[in-house]
């Protein structure tokens, strides 16, 4: 009797927790939690653009979803790809677009300060993506308007980085190739880009200077040496 209770409890716990090592998570309820697990990164596919849930966009959406599936499989079990559904349907379902949980994606887009019209977005973060306290360090990629080949190229590059390095280069998010041709450029950030470039230049200069200086401290008991930075 005791064993059966323990077995049932173990089954319950195992069923409630996300399966360990899964590479994709398709959440099919507005309240379903994104698995926490021990993942290195979470990649959220956010379809918050109303255009993308129109019936005529079903083919594009199906293509994006297939890309999501293959991306989720390719990034390995230590990285999780997340998609939000209202309910689970087949990819070939003509009503596929209607089942995308736009409202939930919109919450994330609002938190990220991203215009739904520029979406869908792919957001990669190394910390748990809690919509109430979204990690500041994240890479946001605009997928809206990307041609199929460009989308494949972007996801392939991200797959390489996530699988081999366990992170993505944030600079890729601002790469010109990720801006679809013909689209209007994104709105200017609240802070002057010149000032940001100056700040970043200063930062790089200080880091570069620090890497060129070789400092050796010898106190007799202890000897410490700061060498040139690797990979610079």
């Amino acid at each position: 009797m005791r064993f059966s209770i323990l077995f049932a409890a173990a089954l319950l716990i195992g069923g409630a927790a996300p399966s360990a090592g899964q590479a994709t998570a398709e959440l099919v309820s507005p309240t379903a939690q994104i698995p926490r697990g021990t993942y290195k990164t979470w990649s959220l596919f956010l379809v918050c653009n109303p255009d993308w849930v129109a019936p005529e966009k079903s083919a594009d959406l199906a293509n994006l979803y297939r890309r999501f599936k293959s991306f989720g499989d390719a990034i390995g079990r230590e990285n999780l790809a997340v998609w939000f559904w209202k309910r689970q349907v087949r990819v070939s379902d003509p009503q596929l677009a209607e089942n995308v949980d736009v409202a939930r994606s919109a919450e994330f887009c609002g938190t990220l300060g991203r215009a739904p019209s520029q979406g869908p977005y792919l957001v990669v973060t190394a910390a748990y993506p809690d919509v109430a306290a979204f990690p500041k360090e994240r890479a946001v990629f605009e997928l809206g308007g990307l041609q199929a080949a460009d989308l494949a190229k972007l996801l392939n590059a991200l797959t390489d980085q996530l699988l081999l390095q366990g992170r993505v280069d944030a600079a890729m998010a601002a790469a010109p190739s990720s801006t679809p041709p013909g689209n209007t450029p994104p709105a200017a950030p609240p802070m002057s880009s010149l000032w940001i470039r100056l700040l970043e230049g200063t930062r790089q200069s200080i880091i570069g200077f620090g890497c060129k200086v070789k400092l050796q401290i010898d106190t007799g008991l202890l000897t410490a040496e700061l060498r040139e930075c690797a990979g610079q």
Partner: protein
Amino acid sequence: MSIKRWHWGKIVILWAWGGFVVVLLLTRFLSQKAELDPVVSSMSFLGSVLILIALTIVTWLWLGGKDNAPTDRR
């Protein structure tokens, strides 16, 4: 007669605390790309520069300078 006199103890204490805060701010500034959080990066960088300027002014004005040597009364 005017002589130069520095308050070395006060200078060390002031710059030790100031240096500690500046190191924290610069570490924050250097550890993250500026475009990720421009406001925090700006505040970190400007804060560290302002603290160094303030320390220099305080040191120059109040912790060092010319003192009159005591008059030699005989």
